[in-house]
């Protein structure tokens, strides 16, 4: 059984709009790109929680799962975290490949 996780509350912010112009969620303890040590600790905590939600390791939460999904996506999508040590090499592996602009290569390949 997964441990019970205390969820940091989120609130709907009428002034904050997603790219479709709809009101979206924000965490009540928001993290910014420029983080103090304390904020960084908070952000890492949020990140680990979002990771847990998306990896299905958090099964027992104090908030309905739909809201959790929004929050997890929001956190992973919009806050930068100091996890470069882990993910930066993966990003570099992609950059080393010839993958970028692959659609042009594909269109050329199928036109023959």
């Amino acid at each position, binding site marked *: 059984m997964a441990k019970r996780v205390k969820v940091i509350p989120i609130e709907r912010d009428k002034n904050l709009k*997603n*790219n*479709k112009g*709809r009101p979206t969620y924000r965490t009540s303890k928001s993290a910014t790109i420029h983080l103090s040590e304390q904020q960084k600790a908070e952000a890492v905590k949020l990140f680990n929680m979002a*990771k847990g*939600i*998306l*990896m*299905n390791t958090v*099964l027992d939460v104090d908030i*309905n*799962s*739909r809201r959790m*999904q*929004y929050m*997890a*996506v929001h956190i*992973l*999508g919009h806050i*930068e*975290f100091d*996890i470069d040590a*882990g*993910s*930066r*090499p*993966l*990003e*570099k*592996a*992609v*950059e*080393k*490949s*010839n*993958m*970028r*602009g*692959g*659609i042009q*290569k*594909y*269109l050329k*390949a*199928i*036109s*023959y």
Partner: protein
Amino acid sequence: MAFGRQDNKANDNADMKIVKFTTMVQEVDHYLLGASGRAGGVFIFGKYKVYYSQILKRYNADPFISVMENIFNPGKGGPVDLVDETVVIQTFKEMKNKQEKKFNEYYRLMFWLLFAAAVNDEIYNNELSSIADFAYCLEFTEKMMGDWCVVVDYLLSGNHLSEMSPLPLESPEGISYFLHR
């Protein structure tokens, strides 16, 4: 009149490219689903789907991304596609019971995320960092990430993916997942 005929021909060509791309994506996904032991059909990532759906939806002005969105989220609307909660719970239980299948779902998700990044430069520029974060969460290694990119590049070079594909894969996970060995 001549211009009209040229326009029609250009449209036909564009349509044909979309059709070919659609077929390719469907065939590849069917092949990948074979690796997970499923017969194909519904695309369920459980909660992972939310992240993938959001990326496709955000960039669906690109006709090729729109094709992928139609294949993986047929008939869905709304700002973010969310799977039904009961389905999510069911998927939890299913994945917890079948570790191998769970990993195959991770692999499949990461493959289509990287594929989308290769197809659309905006996704590559804006989302690559978060895709890499996500890969890290899913316990991908550098070799695995390289292998996944090799396969994306191989397909976008006009090749077909099969067990006999001459892919220079390095990770055991990549060899097992893409070449079924």
